[in-house]
């Protein structure tokens, strides 16, 4: 006997199956060309390097040891791979500073945009979207030409008599940092703007009515309400910054490597694919740890409010 209830369940099952089918081309493409390959990287990190790149199918933990340690060629003792530790530290440090700096500049910018009237808001949004859509390499090239020794910045400072010799910015960590803040700023502004755009300014008014100072209103009312945007922006900036490839390659020169340059080296001249794979997984772990901390923080705060 089929009751109406059974029929609904059956129809729902048919509908769900149809929906899975509809989503399958997207899922399959992402599995084949984005998620699946990650498992192969994991497998490769436990294999032996081949003589001319690629791998020999022989288990070896050497790649993972090589992420942090160096083996002495003469007596096989392990010591901390200071070159690697330097690069990890530089990557994490630069990615964190980039996130904080884009937040520092991006929040006021987003707030400014959100407090314009509706017509000019469109214009400002358009102005921040253009850099977001323009090629990252071109924007990095633009920054390169500003900060190099013969660039506009140094020329102007010399003409103004503030310095005698050009300041060497290019090929330093500062150059990478300037480049990353420049290219990732729109990624911070857009999500914060999205959350501030919906901000109910009656709450702000209420704050002032209760004699709160500007600073207190900002800290106790505006910032908490903008928090989802701030978190989204920070994630959107931190993830590409820690794996940044273009900025350190173009602005850092050969010496100031970040994670991605070290990884590229292993797949190129280094011919050590397992080490490159292990390094890639290490970046993934750092990113996932950062995401987890955010998720944890968020749910804990939500519970306290509820």
């Amino acid at each position, binding site marked *: 006997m089929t009751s109406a209830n059974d029929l609904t369940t059956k129809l729902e099952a048919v*509908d769900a199956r149809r*929906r*899975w*089918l*509809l*989503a399958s081309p*997207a899922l399959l*493409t*992402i*599995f*084949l*060309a*984005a998620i*699946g*390959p*990650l498992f*192969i*990287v994991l497998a*490769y990190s436990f294999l032996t390097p081949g003589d001319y790149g690629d791998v020999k199918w022989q288990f070896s933990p050497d790649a993972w040891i090589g992420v942090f340690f160096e083996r002495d060629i003469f007596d096989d003792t392990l010591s901390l791979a200071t070159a690697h530790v330097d690069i990890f530290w530089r990557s994490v440090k630069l990615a964190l500073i980039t996130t904080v700096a884009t937040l520092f*500049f991006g929040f*006021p*910018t987003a707030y*400014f945009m959100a407090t314009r009237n509706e017509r000019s808001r469109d214009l*400002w949004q358009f102005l921040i979207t253009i*850099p977001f*859509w*323009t*090629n*990252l*390499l*071109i924007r990095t*090239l*633009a*920054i*390169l*030409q500003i900060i190099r020794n*013969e660039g*506009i910045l140094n020329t102007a400072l010399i003409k103004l008599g503030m310095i005698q010799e050009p300041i060497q910015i290019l090929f330093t960590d500062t150059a990478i940092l300037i480049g990353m803040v*420049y290219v990732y*700023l*729109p990624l911070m502004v857009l999500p914060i703007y999205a959350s501030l755009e919906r901000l109910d*300014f009656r709450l*702000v*008014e209420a704050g002032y009515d209760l004699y709160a100072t*500007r600073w207190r209103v900002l800290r106790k009312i*505006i910032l908490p309400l903008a928090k989802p945007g701030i978190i989204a922006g920070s994630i959107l900036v931190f*993830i*590409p910054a*820690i794996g940044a*490839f*273009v900025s350190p390659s173009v602005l850092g020169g050969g010496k100031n490597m970040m*994670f991605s340059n070290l*990884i*590229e080296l292993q*797949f190129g001249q280094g011919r050590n*694919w397992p080490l*490159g*794979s292990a390094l890639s997984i290490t970046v*993934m772990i750092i990113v996932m740890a950062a*995401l987890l901390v955010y998720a944890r923080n968020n749910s804990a705060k939500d519970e306290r409010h509820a």
Partner: protein
Amino acid sequence: MRKGFSVRHQPGFTAIAIACFALLYLPVVTLVVYAFNSAPSVAAWGGFSLHWFEVALTNSDVIDASVRSFQIATVAATLATVFATMAALATTRTRRYRGQTFIYAFINQPLMVPEIVTAVALLIIVAQLKAVTGYSGLGYLIAAHTAFCIPFAYLPIRARLENMDLSLERAAADLYAKPLYTFRRVTLPLLWPGILGAFMLAFVLSLDDVVITEFVKSGGQDTLPTYMLGQIRRGITPEMNAISTAFLLLSVVIVTLFFVVSRKRT
């Protein structure tokens, strides 16, 4: 009472914002100006000239790389948009069903992985596939680009679907329209701006990509950005500024179109 007290004002914010916008545009504007420099170096100004555009246009490497970029972007953006539209239809306007969150997380996964990791992963896979199949064409690049474009194409379409109300489609069904007919005559026209916006976003993302292309490409498969990266690493020439300027112009045109399309109310 103080005059002109605005609840919206925060001290210093406007100054920082204006400075940010100025600093965002200043380097790019400088680059564009120097593209019209006749001097053979990028350091000094030698008068207005289109010389470097001419050099770029007669450079067969630049032309080849541009054509390749366009081929890849057209195919990858089309595939990504079609797949993303299907996936968006599958995950919106329904009661929660088993696996819906999974589909959502799966599609957004490429956003959560640093590009360099995906690039390396694809490098390994493509090396294996090349050895096994002997095929080394543009297919690998197209597949890789399609995959990273899907999440970006999915989001605007999904947003549009979620704001779309079901009553028109229900009305069509009440009038005995077949599902496919309803989709073609009701859903699709309403969804069209979202789909077009998604396509443009995917197209630009594919056109701009450096990292994944750099690792996946075979010899002689440079796209415009990877060609430029190779040149810049060797030292910058004014020709790079000319190419960049043309590229920028294209991006601005596409963003403007995107804005016009996404503002359109249906």
